[in-house]
């Protein structure tokens, strides 16, 4: 097919708008043996975008281990799948919606949730839980408050409406995210073995069905939008913003549930980035066949839409199905019952290509070997950041900015450490009646109906010290997730990742990406957690400033016995308080690099990232799991952001009891002036803070000694104070006020800006 009429090759500007380089265009022409026409060029631009093709990151992602006896489906389908035993499978995936959320926070975040739900629905699964990971600039800035509030509103709106509980997540604020907020959402679903659907098209002559919303001019070039820097021009690309309709998606969900497992269902796929074109091309590619689409059969919301717009529209709430020839009426009837429009828009063909016709006239034909698999891999330069000159000892040790008590209270009052209740009380976290542990603890726990087992879910990001060492910081993120699961006795089944990075054309960012993926691969291997699905979000930069490396990691684990969950926090007076794991590391036993304390005191991470011993992490997690199962621990919490000081305060506030403990570290002979605060607030890895009945101590000691995990009894639960002898002492009420009050306090300022908290539709 030749470029109809116009023989001139596209201008550089035209290519730029499609986010294609001249080299890529040349490669496409060579592979096709001709020049693509206008529509074909648009299809190539979308499918060859970073967002759809992973052209920059693919070669790195191959390192990630994705196999285990439990893994049924690794990366490559809509979501990863692990086996829960007894014929039940669990699907999960995380995805970013960073760019759309920056432009239109409510709808951007909402459609992000809608998109990740559809990935799980497309597996034939029923979504049972959502989690989110969100990052913004500092809340002192009214714009950031507004954006944060509206993203939370959008996430809540979609999840609350559709009736899938949002059971966990994480919230983080730092200047570095002021111009590039991060909005990652994770969805977890359950499906019986025989009902798992796949996203493929095969069987010549089988009809291709489009179901759900009418196709409008929404988000044309959304895929390329997510693949270029956010700049002023983003304003002009605004039609890229889509308005979500959770109501329609709820109907889609229920209808797909009824149809999953139907022997006449060949393939099921959601329409995500690049709309119909990518859904159809990828389904056909997976099935080793081709697809022909007649654009006239696509039901449109607006008049005058051409093939280009129909094929590239990113209208939400649509799914593509391939069914056995002859079954189409039965399927359409099912969808009609749910009030959903469903049209046959094409058929499977033998020739492995995507063919588009407009009223019977062929308007595009591209081999899938080019369209899906032909993008030339990008290998931008990468250059390591020179290791920072370690200023030793740390200035915070030498010249502490605050007395230990004050430092402790400040860290408790930081929105990064304080409770996120302000966020999750706006999320329905209970619908479905299976939420045994909701947001606000370490891992969320969902029961599995008819079993003693449960699912444990946690979202954690790379440690902030990933700025100092992306490899180790990323591995620490996975280790933290593992600790969160261990606290409820759960064994990890798998992880889904969302790699949020800056400009891949910056050699430094490219290096960060390479390092982070290597760190994730190494940690996943050492900790025994296969990576089953994921997503890459690049170009999170503004005016040349990239975000810090921020991989988010969503873990799923299996809780063997819900009756054996520990209680939240310090709840029984007289119980022992114990620290499991190595009490400290580094000079004077304290590690401050990348800690929240350091961030508050100096604004940015410095020094070196905390040490990480993956083998010790794995041993400790296993030992903690065993102790939980043996009911040796009354409560268990890991030390993460804010170190021992935050863990102690949280355990005390959650359980309603204070504690008097000793310092886990003996003071050095001549302690630095900042030593006490550093003991409390340093972020040494691999530690758990537990409480236990004194009668169980001997057994716990035996178990941990056998496992080679250090144990230190620090003191006792009880009273109205939190006291670390010789270090600092604060009232329990003060700790509670900081933890509970920080975020509502920070949000109390006047809300400004467009939209007044109005959505496109109300919430019940």
């Amino acid at each position, binding site marked *: 097919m030749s470029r109809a009429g116009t023989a001139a090759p596209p201008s550089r500007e035209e290519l730029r708008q499609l986010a294609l380089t001249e080299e890529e265009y040349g490669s496409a022409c060579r592979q096709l043996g001709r020049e693509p026409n206008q529509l074909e060029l648009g299809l190539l631009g979308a499918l060859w975008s970073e967002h759809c093709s992973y052209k920059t990151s693919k070669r790195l992602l191959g390192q990630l281990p994705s196999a285990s006896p439990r893994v049924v489906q690794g990366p490559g389908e809509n979501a990863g799948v692990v086996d829960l035993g007894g014929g039940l499978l669990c699907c999960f995936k995380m995805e970013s919606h960073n760019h759309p959320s920056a432009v*239109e926070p409510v709808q951007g975040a909402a459609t992000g949730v809608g998109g990740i739900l559809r990935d799980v629905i497309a597996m034939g699964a029923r979504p049972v839980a959502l989690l989110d990971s969100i990052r913004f600039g500092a809340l002192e800035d009214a714009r950031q408050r507004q954006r944060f509030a509206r993203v939370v509103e959008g996430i809540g709106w979609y999840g609350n409406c559709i009736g899938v509980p949002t059971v966990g997540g994480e919230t983080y604020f730092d200047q570095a995210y002021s111009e590039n907020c991060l909005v990652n959402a994770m969805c977890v679903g359950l499906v019986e073995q025989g009902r798992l659907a796949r996203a493929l098209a095969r069987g010549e002559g089988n009809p291709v069905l489009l179901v759900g919303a009418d196709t409008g001019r*929404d988000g044309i070039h959304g895929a390329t939008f997510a693949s270029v820097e956010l700049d002023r021009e983003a304003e002009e690309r605004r039609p890229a*913003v889509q308005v979500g309709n959770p109501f329609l998606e709820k109907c889609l969900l229920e209808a797909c549930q009824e149809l999953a497992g139907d022997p006449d269902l060949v393939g099921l796929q959601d329409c995500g980035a690049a709309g119909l074109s990518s859904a159809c091309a990828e389904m056909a590619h997976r099935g080793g066949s081709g697809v022909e689409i007649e654009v006239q059969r696509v039901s449109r*919301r607006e008049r005058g839409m051409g093939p280009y717009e129909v094929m590239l529209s990113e209208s939400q709430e649509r799914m593509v199905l391939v069914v056995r020839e002859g079954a189409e009426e039965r399927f359409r009837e099912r969808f009609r019952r749910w009030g959903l429009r469903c049209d046959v828009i094409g058929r499977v063909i033998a020739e492995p290509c995507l063919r588009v016709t407009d009223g019977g006239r062929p308007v595009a034909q591209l081999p899938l070997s080019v369209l899906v698999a032909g993008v030339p891999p990008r290998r931008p330069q990468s250059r390591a950041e020179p290791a920072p000159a370690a200023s030793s000892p740390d200035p915070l040790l030498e010249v502490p900015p605050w007395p230990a008590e004050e430092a402790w209270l400040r860290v408790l009052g930081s929105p990064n450490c304080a409770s996120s209740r302000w966020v999750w009380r706006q999320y329905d976290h209970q619908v479905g009646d299976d939420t045994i542990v909701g947001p606000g603890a370490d891992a969320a726990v969902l029961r599995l109906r008819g079993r003693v087992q449960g699912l444990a879910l946690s979202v954690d990001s790379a440690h902030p010290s990933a700025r100092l060492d992306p490899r180790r910081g990323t591995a620490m993120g996975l280790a933290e997730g593992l600790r969160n699961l261990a606290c409820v006795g759960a064994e990890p089944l798998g992880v889904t990742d969302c790699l949020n990075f800056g400009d891949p054309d910056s050699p430094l960012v490219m290096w960060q990406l390479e390092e982070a993926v290597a760190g994730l691969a190494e940690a996943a291997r050492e900790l025994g957690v296969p990576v089953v699905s994921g997503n890459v979000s690049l170009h999170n930069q503004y005016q040349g400033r990239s975000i810090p490396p921020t991989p988010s990691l969503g873990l799923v684990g299996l809780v063997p016995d819900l009756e054996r969950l520990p209680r939240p926090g310090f709840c029984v007076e007289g119980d022992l308080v114990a620290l499991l794991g190595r009490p400290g590391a580094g000079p004077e036993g304290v590690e401050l690099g990348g800690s929240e304390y350091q961030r508050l005191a100096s604004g940015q991470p410095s020094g070196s990232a905390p040490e990480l011993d993956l083998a010790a992490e794995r041993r400790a997690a296993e030992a903690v799991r065993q102790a939980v199962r043996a009911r040796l621990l009354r409560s268990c919490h890991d030390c993460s952001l804010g170190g021992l000081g935050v863990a102690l305060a949280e355990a005390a506030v959650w359980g309603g009891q204070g504690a008097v403990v000793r310092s886990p570290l003996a003071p050095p002979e001549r302690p630095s002036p900042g030593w006490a605060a550093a003991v409390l607030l340093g972020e040494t890895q691999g530690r758990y803070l537990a409480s236990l009945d004194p009668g169980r101590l001997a057994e716990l000691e035996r178990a941990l000694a056998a496992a080679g995990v250090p144990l230190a009894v620090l003191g006792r639960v009880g009273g109205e104070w939190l006291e670390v002898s010789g270090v600092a002492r604060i009232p329990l009420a003060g700790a509670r006020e900081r933890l509970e009050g920080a975020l509502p306090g920070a949000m109390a300022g006047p809300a400004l800006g467009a939209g*007044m908290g109005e959505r*496109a539709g109300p919430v019940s």
Partner: protein
Amino acid sequence: MVRLKPVVNDPQGLVVTEALHALGYDEVEGVRVGKFISLELGDGDPERARARVEEMCRRLLCNGVIEDYRFQLSEGGEAS
């Protein structure tokens, strides 16, 4: 009066259209649902009020990403 731009999907309008059809109002060809905001203004110069309301719409009342606005002043310092 603030409403979704014509190219923006209005799921609410679609559902209301269907509901009206179900009730037998077949003559309804389309529905769009927007906001109606009434402001009560301290008396003042209508010229100036117009400029100020314009500004309020742009800065706060209307989300320019997806919405358009239109307003009129009526006597007694009301704008909507």
